[in-house]
């Protein structure tokens, strides 16, 4: 396999020829999303529509078509996910304050008889976690996290004690610190790059997987607060 197949000196002409249509698509999608936001009257709809706008952003970044661009898509994805998470939470909190139903509100429990909810979760979750662990990094974290999320969403007994919650969140914070250590090793002691690589890859993996898994707990709407 020749070096030019491995890494060319210039970006291939196909990608260059796709650049303009891709950018136009991105701009168009962004434009449609923005127009929709500008005439919607409902905050929840605005939240959903911002999703479209950020898809436009992903296209704009992807259109560059290099490995660097791919590395830059991941932050974009993560930012989108993170902001939707935080903002939807704020929206709910605002509405609950407005309604003044903070305590009385009892969400409907999950009560269905779906066959798939009895058999599938364990199986799918195990596959996804193993596959995610093999992938490691952000990708693996997201995939394994998706598995955990699904499992938690459909299987967990009612009510999660807050200590468990804090424990899992703490573990993921520690994993994040591992990643910082890995990052520093890369520059302080370049000869140990392999160690740094593994620290970084699995630090991020554990962190993202746990966080995403906890989103599943949020999805259950139930939460048992410990006595303080």
């Amino acid at each position, binding site marked *: *396999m020749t*070096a030019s*197949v491995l890494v060319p000196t*210039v*970006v*291939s002409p196909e990608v260059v020829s796709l*650049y*303009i249509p891709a*950018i*136009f698509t991105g*701009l168009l999608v962004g*434009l449609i999303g*923005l*127009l929709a*936001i500008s005439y919607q009257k409902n905050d929840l709809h605005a939240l959903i529509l911002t999703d479209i706008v950020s898809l436009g952003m992903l296209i704009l970044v992807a259109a*560059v*078509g*290099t*490995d*660097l661009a791919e*590395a830059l898509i*991941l932050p974009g994805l*993560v930012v989108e*996910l993170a902001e939707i*998470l*935080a903002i939807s*939470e*704020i929206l*709910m*909190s605002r509405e609950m304050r407005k309604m003044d139903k*903070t305590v009385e509100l009892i969400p409907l429990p999950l009560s269905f008889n779906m066959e798939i909810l009895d058999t599938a979760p364990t199986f799918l979750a195990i596959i996804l976690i193993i596959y995610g662990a*093999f992938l*490691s*990094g*952000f990708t*693996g974290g997201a995939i394994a996290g998706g598995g955990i999320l699904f499992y938690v969403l459909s299987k967990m007994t009612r*009510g999660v004690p807050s200590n468990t919650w804090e424990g899992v*969140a703490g573990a*993921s914070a520690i994993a*994040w610190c591992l*990643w*910082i250590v890995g*990052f520093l090793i*890369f520059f302080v002691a370049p*000869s140990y*790059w*392999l160690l*740094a*690589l*593994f620290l970084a*890859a699995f630090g991020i993996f554990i962190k*993202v997987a746990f*966080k995403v898994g*906890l*989103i599943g707990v*949020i999805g259950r*709407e139930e*939460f*048992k607060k410990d*006595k303080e």
Partner: protein
Amino acid sequence: MKLGRIWNSLATPKNIPKLFSIILGLVLLTGFIVPLTYNDHQLYPRPTPQLQISEKDPLAPYNRGGIPLEEPGIVKAQYPQFALSEGMVTGYLSPIAIGVSNTTLYFGTSIYSSPGGLIDEILYYSRGFDTILESSILMMAFVIASWVALHFTMRRKEE
């Protein structure tokens, strides 16, 4: 005083996202007129799409050469002088990954997203600081969401 009323309505929070999206939309519209230029001398270029997979490369589409732990792969970083073991991560494959690559032709993505590989090099080494930030963005968003959820929005069983 019409101007005054317009100014007042601009100070209402609910109208601001709409205003922002209209302004941004107008700017995006100009994007259709501006002549687009693409510089094909990019950092970290990649081969033509589907080229590696067509050549039956088990590591497609991320094969960038190099021998694990011995020879660095080929990368075109911005500042090679600041990355001493440049290309080593790109060339690295974990033992499991080597095993997988010997069995099948179509698992290149998994192989290269397991520890080692080009994207890992960019994400963790040459642009590692970005990854710190993006993971902290996720973490902060999660901290916010979980705090709000735990304190306000989720149902609490007071037992």
